């Protein structure tokens, strides 16, 4: 109890005399154990229970006098009837403090406390930090704390006291044992032990010693394998180490189940943590000792041997040793593909069932464990030869390396980790062509691993490779470009290529004659170099600045020339690059003016899916432009695009093809042509069960198709309305923009509208006004206009949407002009219903509209004037518009260059002019003069009111 409580239990702030016991599972466990011991004490040890404590245990209790029953004198302070030899009560309660002087009273008290008994025990222990001293006196307490018993001294004290002492000691041990049992499930000293053994070997064996000494602070090992004192084990600590490295002060290390860390022993500040927690010793040492970090890799091979040997010696220990090796050295090599498992090992927290499972796995594939390290050994040896070989030996070694499975991650990382990558990169800087070829042949393959790519860039390898692009040897150039294609998969690499002038060099590689029917061997090599160059540019073109650099280096015409190649393996990187770059407007123009559309269209009919996809994707990006769309039609590209819709199983291809159709269908001539190939029918069929990137395009295309009245009915006929309305519930913003647009376009057909309304489509569109994206908001608002216009009982429909009008009015506070314009347009439609206009007015539409009048955006002006004109029709709104200063700016709209704005403004002014004050304002602003200047027919209304009021 004493040991446990003072050392094991988790106290909040140990500094103050009356710390609290934390509410942790472990404390709970201890308290319950102690409670259980106390509860049964009277019954099990009646004699010892009588023993009177040296000093009373005293604490603030929650019990009150009424809780005490018979055996207690409850007049005034509660006193137990049981008294000691001197007549003092063994229990005394002077609320809220209680004093207890024997176990029998303690026992009774906890029984009386009922469900508060745990709190009582907690309070008692919190306030009596040395219960043993109080119960037995300082002498016994000391003995117990030291854990040894001097039987000679017992004579001094009563026999009972000794027995009580033993009882308490046993309870203490029992509790600890129980706790340890619980803890041992998550405390695994074996892993640490094995790692320490491995480290100890590093002090004596291997090419170069990496550490001076590794030793435990304590030679005594507990039965559970831990060396930390029991009470520290309860904190998850396993053992303490002193490691003497070559290059710094000794490390004082605590190994715990949470990891390893430096403790304060070296600085005389106890066992507190003074460093980060590392997952294992090797990691800690690597970060703390440069010498260790430098030389540990040389030990990898040795370690593998060791691992194999141990493996053979102790088949049953295998999983644990494997864990050690995993968590230490080759973890990153062997098991990096399975970080989840590595993680488990790191925290030593694998549950027993899992380790059994691993046992089985290991037994099932024993060969693997021996095979893999053999490969490392092989790689390390080869790298050694690379380092120490002349040209002949180097080339032989490189050839041998090519025979390894270089696409396998373990091999790739092994090459890096034994220093092979560095050697390969160094070889690129030599004059030996054959060595460079061999090195690149390996780099080309291992660079399919992103980690290798990053390391290569960090080591400056990419710079060397870019330099090789200038080599006169074609094979070298091709290999270098191919390797760049692999490495330039992340931004930093792409930037490096650009910074070392790589883009210019790569573009230069493209210069060849690709489409001769008969090529000499030499020209064939040129074509291959160009192909590799295109591959590299394709990778690089994912950065915007590189796109620009390719263009500046004159890459576009060269790509255009290669586009005429008959070979797929050339066309794919070329079209890939083009479609990647087509995100830039300069490329889109160039693709059109350099006549590439024709070739792109031609390759739409290739029988290679990937090529078709890139072509369609390029057209998708370029067909925003009117002329490009016309060219696609001119070169008969629409039919192959529709044919591609048949390849519905290839989603990337489908997305590109539907995208191209969408953009092409912006031209109505194209829509007509597409209709000849039954495109609409197929597109409607693609409305369900497709990934979002396909749906966005399909719906986009339907939106364009629906601009033609006949197609709106066709969409309904093929059952397209329902899936479209269903898509309104989605979350993809690009999709929602297109869906609302398509639904809006469909709603211009009265029959469609009825159907949409029956599907609750208007409510769905309306609720999209709440979408955070301004694009979706405006698109939804635009779609509402035809819905309201064509609905049978529009006013009622709008009213039925609870909170809908308030939502609309509130969007007038948006800062986005497109949203404002669309909302104004919607208000124009809504305000046609008087009742709804009244509601809009109540929500304060007038001042909000008036506030917007100072805009110079003609699109907004047009819709705003319309909305103002219609909102005048209710109550005193005309006057309110005048009061809020909306009239003067409106007059100014008449100076706009857009005649549509004039028209709607004139309408609005006409409505406003029905209030005489507004007329005066208009007159002051010179409305007559402006109107007479314009003098157009569209202002017929204006003239009417001018005549009437002025």
């Amino acid at each position, binding site marked *: 109890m004493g040991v446990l409580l003072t050392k094991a239990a988790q106290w909040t702030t140990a500094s103050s005399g009356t710390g609290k016991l934390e509410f942790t599972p472990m404390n709970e466990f201890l308290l319950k154990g102690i409670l259980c011991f106390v509860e049964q004490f009277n019954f099990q040890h009646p004699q010892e229970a009588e023993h009177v404590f040296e000093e009373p245990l005293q604490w603030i209790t929650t019990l009150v006098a009424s809780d005490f029953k018979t055996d207690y004198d409850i007049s005034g302070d509660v006193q137990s009837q049981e008294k000691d030899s001197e007549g003092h009560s063994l229990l005394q309660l002077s609320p809220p403090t209680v004093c207890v002087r024997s176990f029998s009273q303690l026992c009774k008290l906890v029984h009386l406390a009922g469900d508060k008994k745990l709190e009582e025990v907690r309070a008692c222990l919190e306030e009596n930090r040395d219960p043993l001293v109080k119960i037995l006196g300082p002498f016994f307490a000391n003995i117990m704390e030291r854990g040894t018993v001097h039987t000679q001294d017992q004579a001094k004290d009563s026999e009972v006291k000794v027995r009580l002492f033993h009882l308490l000691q046993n309870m203490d041990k029992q509790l600890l044992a129980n706790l340890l049992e619980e803890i041992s499930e998550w405390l695994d000293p074996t892993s640490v032990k094995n790692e320490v053994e491995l480290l100890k070997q590093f002090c004596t064996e291997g090419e170069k010693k990496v550490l001076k000494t590794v030793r435990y602070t304590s030679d005594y090992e507990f039965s559970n394998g831990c060396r930390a004192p029991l009470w520290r084990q309860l904190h998850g600590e396993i053992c303490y180490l002193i490691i003497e490295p070559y290059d710094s002060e000794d490390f004082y290390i605590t190994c715990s189940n949470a990891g390893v860390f430096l403790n304060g022993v070296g600085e005389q500040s106890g066992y507190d943590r003074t460093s980060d927690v590392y997952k294992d010793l090797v990691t800690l040492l690597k970060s703390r000792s440069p010498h260790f970090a430098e030389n540990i890799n040389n030990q990898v091979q040795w370690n593998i041997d060791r691992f194999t040997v141990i493996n053979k010696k102790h088949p049953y220990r295998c999983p644990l040793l494997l864990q050690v090796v995993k968590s230490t050295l080759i973890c990153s090599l062997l098991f990096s593909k399975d970080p989840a498992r590595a993680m488990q090992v790191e925290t030593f927290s694998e549950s027993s069932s899992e380790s059994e499972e691993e046992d089985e796995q290991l037994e099932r594939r024993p060969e693997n464990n021996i095979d893999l390290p053999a490969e490392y050994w092989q790689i390390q040896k080869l790298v050694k030869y690379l380092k*120490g070989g002349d040209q002949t030996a180097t080339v032989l070694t490189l050839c041998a390396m090519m025979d390894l499975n270089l696409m396998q991650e373990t091999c790739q990382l092994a090459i890096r980790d034994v220093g092979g990558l560095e050697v390969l990169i160094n070889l690129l800087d030599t004059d030996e062509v054959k060595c460079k070829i061999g090195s690149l042949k390996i780099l080309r393959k291992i660079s399919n691993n992103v980690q290798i790519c990053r390391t290569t860039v960090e080591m400056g390898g990419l710079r060397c490779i870019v330099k090789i692009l200038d080599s*006169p040897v074609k094979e070298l150039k091709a290999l270098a470009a191919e390797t760049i294609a692999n490495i330039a998969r992340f931004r930093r690499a792409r930037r490096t290529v650009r910074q070392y002038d790589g883009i210019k060099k790569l573009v230069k590689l493209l210069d060849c004659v690709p489409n001769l029917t008969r090529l000499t061997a030499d020209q064939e090599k040129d074509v291959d170099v160009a192909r590799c160059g295109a591959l590299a540019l394709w990778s690089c073109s994912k950065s915007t600045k590189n796109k620009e650099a390719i263009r500046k280096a004159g890459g576009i015409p060269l790509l255009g020339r290669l586009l005429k190649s008959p070979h797929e393996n050339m066309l794919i990187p070329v079209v890939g690059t083009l479609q990647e770059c087509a995100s830039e407007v300069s490329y889109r123009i160039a693709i059109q003016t350099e006549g590439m559309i024709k070739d792109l269209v031609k390759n739409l009919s290739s029988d290679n899916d990937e090529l078709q996809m890139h072509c369609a994707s390029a057209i998708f990006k370029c067909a925003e432009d009117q002329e490009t769309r016309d060219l696609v039609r001119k070169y008969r590209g629409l039919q192959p695009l529709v044919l591609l819709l048949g390849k519905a199983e290839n989603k990337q291809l489908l997305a590109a093809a539907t995208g191209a159709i969408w953009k092409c269908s912006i031209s109505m001539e194209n829509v007509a042509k597409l209709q000849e190939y039954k495109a609409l029918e197929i597109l409607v069929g693609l409305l369900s069960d497709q990934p979002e990137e396909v749906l966005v395009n399909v719906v986009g295309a339907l939106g364009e198709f629906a601009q033609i009245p006949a197609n709106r009915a066709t969409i309904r006929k093929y059952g397209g309305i329902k899936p479209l309305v269903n898509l309104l519930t989605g979350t993809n913003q690009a999709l929602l923009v297109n869906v609302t647009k398509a639904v809006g376009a469909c709603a211009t057909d009265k029959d469609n509208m009825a159907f949409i309304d029956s599907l609750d489509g208007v409510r769905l569109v309306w609720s999209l006004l709440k979408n955070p994206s301004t694009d979706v908001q405006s698109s939804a608002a635009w779609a509402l206009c035809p819905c309201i216009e064509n609905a049978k009982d529009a006013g009622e429909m709008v009213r039925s949407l609870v909170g809908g009008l308030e939502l609309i009015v509130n969007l007038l506070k948006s800062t986005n002009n497109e949203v404002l314009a669309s909302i104004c347009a919607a208000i124009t439609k809504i305000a046609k219903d008087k009742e709804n206009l009244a509601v809009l007015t109540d929500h304060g539409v007038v001042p909000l509209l008036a506030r917007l009048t100072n805009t110079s955006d003609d699109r907004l002006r047009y819709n705003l004037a319309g909305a103002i004109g219609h909102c005048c029709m209710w109550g005193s709104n005309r006057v309110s518009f005048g009061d809020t200063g909306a009239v003067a700016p409106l007059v100014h709209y008449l100076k706009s260059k857009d005649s549509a704005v004039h028209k709607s403004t004139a309408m609005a002014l006409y409505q406003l002019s029905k209030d005489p004050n507004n007329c005066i304002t208009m007159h002051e602003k010179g409305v007559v003069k402006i109107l007479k200047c314009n003098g157009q027919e569209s202002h017929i209304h204006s003239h009417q009111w001018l005549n009437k009021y002025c």
Partner: protein
Amino acid sequence: MSAMSRKLVQTLAETISKQVEHFNKTEVECLIREFKVLLGEPGMGRAVNGLDRVKFRSILHNIFGMTDDMILDGVFRTFDKDNDSFVSMKEWIEGLSVFLRGTLDEKIKYCFHVYDLNNDNYISRDEMFHMLKNSLIRQPTEEDPDEGIKDLVEITLKKMDHDHDGRLSLADFEKAVREENLLLEAFGTCLPDMAVIINERFMRNMVTYISRSEGLNLTFYFPFFSEY
């Protein structure tokens, strides 16, 4: 040069160019002239049959920067087809035809022959060891300093010995080289190297050479120049 000898040279060139691949008559003519220059002035006494080993070595060393004596011996042996310890004019031209302009097939045979030190049509373990013995830095710490070389020989055998008889036949060698061209000069440089050809010393040689013989086809010693 007298008109008489010029006539002789032309006739000779015509004959040889019919027998040797890759060189046209003019080129052969130049080579004949050059051979005479290389041979030096005829000795005071008996006529010289051709280039002896020492002279041959020094020519290859000077022009192509080849330095490995063992390999040069192999090259000499390969050039010297009739095995008379002299490379005659015809042997020289025939040898150069492969050396400078050979197809892959020809080069494979040529290299194999160079590496087949004892002429028994096989490259044995011992021969490989012999050729590679200076190719690795020996680490004094190792118990057996030759261990690395031996291992390298085994690695090479594993890669190239397709019929698993512990030695390389021409067929083994050919197959391996076709799979990986880098293995053509597996056991030492025995063909002119791009980098060396471009190197300054050689260019200087060429300049003096060109100055001596007009009308020489410049691509003559530049077998790789077509790659530029």
